[in-house]
């Protein structure tokens, strides 16, 4: 069942067209991103669509990449956590998580970052309830969510005040 050696299709990920090689047609988008395209940011934590650790954006929709057939995403614009920060620096959402203490073990974090970008890109002024609803598909076991919610509120405020402050420092 595994097609060996031939290039079957390509995916548009973070603005680049990437060939998917040696692929079996039944592979999930999560698997292809991680194992075929060298983008391990999305995490496999349940592969049942229940935890959100594998969240990516496909054509402006936040989805669990574990539930998407990779081949079905041909022609769509896929954004992953690797493609959110400008030039390898942290995005404003990522910086806000850092500032608020919204990260502990980090395994759920990429999924949250993608989900928050998706939320704020569509709704720059979310209510507390809207934030909780938008993030209710992402499970974090470490933080108790308090600091994550703080981070989302802070970045929403800073975006509305016009200081779209993508990190100047980036990763140390």
């Amino acid at each position, binding site marked *: *069942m*595994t097609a060996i050696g031939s290039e079957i299709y390509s995916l548009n990920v973070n603005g680049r067209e990437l060939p998917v090689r040696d692929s*079996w047609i*039944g*592979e999930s988008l999560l*698997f292809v991103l*991680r*194992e075929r395209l060298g*983008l*391990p*940011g*999305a*995490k*496999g*934590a*349940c*592969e*049942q669509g*229940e*935890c959100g*650790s594998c969240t990516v954006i496909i054509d402006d929709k936040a989805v669990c990449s574990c539930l998407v057939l990779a081949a079905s995403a041909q022609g769509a614009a896929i954004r992953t*956590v*690797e493609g959110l*920060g400008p030039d*390898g620096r*942290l995005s404003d959402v*990522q910086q806000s*998580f*850092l*500032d608020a*203490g919204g*990260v*502990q*073990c*980090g*395994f*759920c*974090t*990429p999924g949250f*970052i993608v989900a928050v970008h998706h939320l704020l890109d569509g709704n720059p002024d979310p209510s507390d309830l809207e934030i*909780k*609803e938008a*993030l*209710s*598909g*992402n*499970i*974090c*076991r*470490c*933080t*108790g*969510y*308090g*600091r*994550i*919610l703080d981070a989302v509120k802070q970045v929403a405020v800073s975006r509305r005040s016009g200081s779209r402050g993508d990190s100047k420092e*980036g*990763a*140390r």
Partner: protein
Amino acid sequence: MSLVGAKVLRKEDPRLLSGTGTYVDDLSPAQCAFASFVTSAEAHATIDAIDVRAALAIPGVLAVYTAADFTDYPDLPGGLPTLERPALARNTVRFVGEPVAVVVAEDRYIAADAVAAVTVSYSPLKVMTTIEDATAGDSVPLFPRHGSNVITIVPTMDDLEKELAKCHGRASLHIVNQRCAAVPIEPMAVLADWKPDGLTVWATFQAPHHLRNYLATWLDIPQMNCRVVAPDVGGGFGSKIVWYPELFIAPVISKLLRRPVKFAQTRTEAMMQMAHGRDQVHDIEVGYEKDGTIKALRLIVSQNLGAYGDPTGLGLAVLTTWMAAGAYRIPKVSTSFRTVVTNTTPVAAYRGAGRPEAAYSIERIVDQVARQTGLDPAVVRQRNFIPPSAFPYETHNEAVVYDSADFPAALAECLRIVDYDAVRAEQKARRNDPSKPLLGIGLSCWLEIAGFGPNGSLEGFGHLASWESAQVRIQPDGSAIVYSGSSPHGQGHETMLSQIASDELGISFDRIKVITGDTAAVLQGIGTMGSRGAPTAGSAVKVASSRVLTRAKRIAAHLLEAAEEDLEVVDDAFNVKGSPGKKVSWGDVAWASFQPLRIPPELQAGSLEERLFQESPNFSYPSGAYACVVEIDRETGDVTIRDMVLVDDCGTVINPLLAEGQVHGGVAQGIAQALYEGVSYDSSTGQPVTANLLDYLVPSAADLPDYKVGRTTTLCPNNPLGAKGIGESGSVGAPPAVINAIVDALSEFGVDHIDMPATPEKIWKAMKSGGNS
């Protein structure tokens, strides 16, 4: 300015936020094969036959192994000899999900297909999932060699019946502390690469050195050729200090196939195979006087071990009985326990590990005393507290001497923040207003044992020991690398230990790197569990750093031709006090330390390095006072937490951002146990019915309240930092606060107790039946 105590942002975060952290499953060496396990579909059965032919016929399948391929290897380490657990089930399976065979394939899709193609024939045996079933007259032993399903019994010398009978009143509760799953977001994963010159194992684990030590013994190879790396670890909560068979099998497969081999659990596998926690049943009874003072306490504990006797699982009830009396001065305390194996997933440490169970029962029974005496629960607590002047406080168990606390101050602060009197007044007003939801307030003045841990009292726990290691090495440019034996899984050790080292060394935070979790880099370590990071690992770094500084000062004084005592270290430089400009940089001192002609004659080149095993004379005892205010819908029984006040005393706080983060996370797990979570089995078949995140309710952001955090501080006298640990506090303190609030809200219905998780269904039934459900 001191960094210890300051809100310092985490060093770890940029890589974790950008998806460039490295967890085990992110590693994919060339030629890596993938392993997947055939697991038992039966809870208790003998294996008649395993047919692997169809699996082997699938293209891309490399091998299938069963117990017959592992006869050269001993049973897994750690358990009791009579509870033998082979790496793969041999003859008998004892829980659903137990590994029976392992398939190795070119990738995980092929491996999954091959697992489905393996046929195992079973002859079912009697299934016993509960303590009652496993100890009933018609039970059969899971381990015929052991003879009984009761594995350990620690009886009491005195059941205190006389003391209890003498009291003004008696209060008793039968309490079920339900089974929970740890659910780290990263499931178990292991990657093994056996090369002719040595084995490397990357494992998501909390104690890589112990894994290395056991693994080398099990494989019969020298430890020098066995390297274990715990890279970024996606949460653990106790579930990653267990000797899972997969950890031992993967290296053998790599050896046989001469290829790297990876195994990464699915969530359903994780729910069935990663050790569960809690699962104790308590009968607690106290005798009290008219004024609410408690004179005698009797606690009888039954622990469901699941199948096999995990070494930490066997110790849970010990910790529970140690902490039975909580924050209270109770003259007579009697405890006893027994542990029982059942046909369920093994039970081991889960965040709190024995102490949440103790805190829950004592805090529930104190509320029951308040109920029966008509006194306010806060007053009953105040009347029974161990006073601050009584520390160090010797408890009913000689191993347990509480270090320090100020319970009255913590409760007072908690009552102030929650505005206790106002809530009580509001509650009174609502009693006569059926248009509003029920209101309840619950308190929890908890105490736990942490900083694991010193000396002989932990021998029974196998791999826990008293020390933690640190090594501080100054690089030739004056930057520093700190090695710690405490391998973290989300706690922020890189940040926390850098703060401590920075303060001691006078080297700036950004010029300190922390390395953990690699047995090739760190000589020995215990790991991260039992809230020991700050008290043990932090103290080790503090002392090692100060010793390095002493020698660095000697070199600096030599270079400056000044007296050591005239030097101060500021901003990565040694200054002569009172002589502006007379200074030498840390980099110059470090460089000089490698030049024999530039250092004082009594020092050797390369002296700016210190390795240290820091041993504390005793445990630490974090404590706190929590309050929870709930509203309960009168029609549906649905609970809303309106307020959650958390006053913690963890001694010295290294970093409030990290410490409060630990409290938030622990409280979230505590609330989850109180309201949502519980592992359950079909009792006739032993099939797990909560084996994914749809059926097992881990709360989301929408389910949890905001937290109000306060703090009191009494220093721990048992370590140089004065830190007590904070990792498990929330999961110890939160459940009784939530359930006390719910029972308080339901008091008008005559409800004395409600078992966790307090689902709307249970609460609704309790409201209808007056608690006699």
